[in-house]
């Protein structure tokens, strides 16, 4: 296996926010979901990968190459989709394609036209006349038309209706059948990832909380529910966050076996959703 994205001790400070020493790796052929609350550092990380902003320290390697030293080569092999439309709104779909395509070494008009037909995109319409979903589909068509090996998507599903979102997810899972292709997908709509992600990287307040296979998370984490009397300092240290109600409590643990042993049958331990995990981490010991 070879790493497609390799980030080591990446640092970036802004006024009032900093990315602290983040590290993670995405192997070739997988989909990684990059989750975290708004303002956690998802877009900052993606901008650093794309060299839109400058890192303070650390290392970013894409396909094993430094992302700045080999910037052009790396970007030739990346397909990107962002949360907003950054295309020239005054141009038509075809015109915009004509401006972009010569920059890519492996651009294929055939592939592009195939997706345009598949997505029923009007070729001669100006981009500003397209709906949000259409604009997103255009961005996806561009990202898919130059034989990219890595797809970087920054909140591609935000603001899209469930039908288009599900279409996008279908495309991604279809893409990944080619084992040379990988996807790095940031989102706060975690239900999208339940369906397609192999790995989950969770970022909170500028730090990576975990980066591991999705199945591991669902296996180790547990949503514990039970009466208040069960809580003691012994079990409390296994809780990431706890919500105490008048009689009962609900808490998240990253060690469900241990908690099961301590609490016995007195408590119910459910599988948490990614949303639950995000929520408990973000709120910590405060009332969730």
């Amino acid at each position: 296996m070879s790493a497609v994205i390799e980030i080591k001790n990446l640092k970036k400070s802004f006024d009032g926010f900093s990315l602290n020493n983040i590290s993670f790796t995405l192997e070739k052929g997988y989909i990684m979901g990059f989750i975290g609350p708004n303002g956690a550092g998802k877009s900052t990380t993606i901008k650093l990968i794309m060299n839109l902003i400058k890192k303070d320290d650390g290392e970013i390697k894409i396909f094993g190459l430094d992302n700045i030293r080999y910037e052009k080569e790396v970007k030739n092999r990346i397909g990107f989709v962002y949360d907003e439309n950054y295309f020239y709104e005054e141009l038509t779909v075809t015109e915009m394609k004509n401006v972009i395509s010569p920059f890519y070494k492996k651009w294929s008009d055939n592939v592009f036209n195939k997706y345009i037909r598949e997505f029923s995109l009007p070729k001669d319409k100006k981009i500003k006349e397209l709906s949000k979903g259409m604009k997103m589909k255009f961005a996806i068509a561009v990202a898919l038309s130059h034989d990219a090996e890595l797809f970087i998507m920054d909140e591609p599903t935000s603001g899209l209706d469930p039908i288009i979102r599900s279409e996008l997810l279908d495309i991604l899972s279809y893409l990944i059948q080619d084992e040379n292709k990988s996807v790095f997908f940031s989102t706060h709509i975690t239900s999208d990832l339940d369906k397609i992600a192999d790995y989950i990287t969770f970022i909170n307040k500028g730090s990576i909380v975990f980066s591991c296979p999705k199945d591991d998370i669902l296996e180790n984490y547990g949503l514990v529910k039970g009466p208040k009397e069960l809580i003691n300092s012994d079990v409390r240290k296994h809780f990431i966050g706890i919500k105490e109600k008048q009689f009962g409590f609900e808490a998240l643990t990253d060690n469900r076996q241990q908690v099961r042993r301590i609490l016995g049958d007195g408590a119910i331990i459910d599988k948490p959703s990614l949303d639950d995990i995000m929520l408990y981490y973000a709120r910590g010991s405060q009332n969730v």
Partner: protein
Amino acid sequence: MFNLIFKDILIQRKSLLFGVIYVFVLILCFQDTGITMFLTSAIGFSYMMIQSACAYDDKNKSDILLNSLPISRNTIVVSKYVSAFVFSGISIVVYSLLTVIINLLKLPIKVSPITLEGVIGILFAIVLMCGIYFPVYFKIGYIKSKVYNFILIFGILFLTTTLLPAILGDKSKVIIQILTKFFSSQSDLIIAIKMLILIILFFSISCMISLNIYRKREF
């Protein structure tokens, strides 16, 4: 690179038509002014197109798109500088087409002919304006640079029409005499070459400053 310039033109197809009308109106306004008619309309039109290309880039936040494509930041900067010449070329072509049409239709409008010194004058003015404007644009973008642009244009006007004569007073005549003497003692070709070298030097320095600024920009 030519792709980026092509994009700058494509994006303002509509203003191109408006530009033709603009040049025509200027021709009407500058009757009996000789070469000033040619200079004003071509410089005005070029600068307008250059500015609005920057405006469209800014409005569409295109820095994010362009810098995500496999394009180096140097290419983005250099193509803006080259586009200044392309737009000057377009404006000269538009002007000449209009003069041809006016002459063919025998309209009762005087047109100043296109001369080599006129073309050099246009290039000189565009290089001067863009050479000062582009580094600011690459630093702070179009919207914020608007204020600066305003100061630039009126500053130049104020400096040349009010401030300098006021400071220099009668001395300005002496300076003009020295300049005329300096220029008249040399052949036109030498002067043209010297001007050209000066223009190239100035534009290259400005381009280097812009490159430096843009390489460090964050989006």
